[in-house]
């Protein structure tokens, strides 16, 4: 097993617990929604770049993924 994959999994689990805790503790706070969305975005990037090995891919693919995620989080937060 690759050490980086293990670290990534631990980070992903910590971020999952953190976002669930924030959501259950602070209700209806805009800033908390932004924090939860950002942390979830980090999880998305960790899975794509580490587990799916997109860190090795052409920069066009990496940029497209980051652009999609930024737009998604940006639009969701703008509408909220």
């Amino acid at each position, binding site marked *: 097993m690759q050490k980086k994959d293990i670290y990534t999994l631990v980070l992903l*689990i910590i971020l*999952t*617990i953190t976002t669930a805790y924030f959501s259950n503790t602070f209700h209806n706070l805009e800033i908390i929604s932004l924090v939860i969305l950002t942390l979830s975005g980090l999880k998305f990037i960790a*899975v794509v770049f580490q587990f799916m090995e*997109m860190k090795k*891919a052409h920069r066009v693919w990496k940029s497209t993924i980051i652009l999609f995620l930024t737009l998604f989080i940006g639009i*969701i937060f703008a509408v909220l």
Partner: protein
Amino acid sequence: MQKEIDYKNIYYPPGGLLIWILISLELLTFGIALIALVFMSKENPDLYHQSRLMLNTTYGAINTVFLLTSGFFMATTVHLFKKGNFTKASFLLKLTMLGGFLFLALKTLEYYHKIEAGLVLDYNTFFSFYWLLTGFHVIHVIVGLVILLYFNFTLEKQKTEDLEAGAAFWHMCDLIWLLLFPVIYLIL
């Protein structure tokens, strides 16, 4: 040892171009549906907030951990396969599938509680979105499990590209869930 693939080539992202076209379309579709959900929630924020509170965040978080751990095992399976260690790769592929089955088991329990409480598809618009989005995601997980099951029986005959494509499909299930979980279970 299998031959190395040049991932820096724009036409060969890990998993292959076709699977990434599929992943892009899936993420766009689910992404647009989630934006529509948030947009609709502005018409009646209290209803959506109260409905969201009827969901079990703990189930959602545990299911996230199941899928992420399964994704970790999938990534490790691919590494071991590339090194020619088929015995270990096969074992980790089974652990990958176990993660998927645990996800489905908990999702079934969650659905059972919702149906028992009368929170079905036409209860309100929030639950229409909930059932459709999580339901379509469950279908993807089932299709992913069928693909993994096929690989489990034919692992040694597989090409690296094919296993990577199957793995990419399985990771796509993680990615879709990573978009669904915060929006449906956490922020509304």
